[in-house]
């Protein structure tokens, strides 16, 4: 598959995931399951942009690792802060 065709499909996938996420945010009861799905979707969408739209999949290794790390850390922190909210609040008390 050419790079252009891959981008076409990934664009449609990203739009579908966005609309699906919006439906989930509107219809689903908040909870750990929804938080996990939203965080995983955030990680997945970020990875698609980084690897395919930014073309970092085969680019400079340092830049690729830094950008990919961002989309491991942020979704993980999102889940951790949701689950361990009180612990995190105590840790960040002035």
């Amino acid at each position, binding site marked *: 598959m*050419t*790079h*252009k065709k891959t*981008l076409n499909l990934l*664009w449609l996938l*990203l*739009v579908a995931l*966005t*609309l699906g*996420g*919006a439906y*989930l*945010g*509107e219809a689903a009861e*908040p909870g750990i399951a929804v*938080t996990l799905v*939203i*965080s995983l*979707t*955030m990680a997945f*969408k*970020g990875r698609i*942009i*980084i690897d*395919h*739209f*930014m*073309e*970092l999949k*085969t*680019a*400079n*290794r340092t*830049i690729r690792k*830094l*950008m990919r790390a*961002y*989309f491991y850390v*942020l979704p993980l*922190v*999102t889940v951790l*802060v*949701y689950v361990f*909210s*009180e612990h*995190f*609040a105590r840790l*960040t008390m002035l």
Partner: protein
Amino acid sequence: MLLTATRSEQDPAEGRIPGNKGIWAGILSEMTEFALLFGVYFIARAHFPAAFHEGPLQLSLFAGTFNTVLMISGSYFVANAVIAIRQNRPEVSLRWLVLVLFAACGYFVTKYFEFRWNVSQGITGRTGIFFTVYYYLTFTHMVHVLWGIMGLLWVMARTRTGAYGPQDHEGMEAFASYWHATDLVWLIIFPLLYLLR
């Protein structure tokens, strides 16, 4: 020649830096700036869970979703502009860049109506901690989109004057990388502010 063109379109050289080092210094600074702001979000969320549970319900999910689609589409359009210039089709590349401009303007129009709607609902930056964080994050993102538009206009002008070609389009790639980074930041802002409760 055809082989070269196909290869450069499909498979940019391994280990390369898209655009140039300067733009990546800027992008990594931008990502660090937003990492700090996301840190503020997480701390505020941990301390005021009720505000962050109720807050998203008062925002316009439609506006947030529509802007996400616009940002994603802008990324898709600019990636296509880069592909077109690699194929030595500057006029096609320019058309894709015009679509990026439409997406960027659409983002601002949506934001304008969203903020107006917020005010009509009595929501300002002083309504509560969630909205303070919401305005801080979204305004900062808007500023970065504005920088992006300035870069876009420059790249459009350069494309129109034939400054870019298959072997030399570093400036367009640098802009594309910046635009993707701005999209990436929004892909975190959207779920944190509009979806997570």
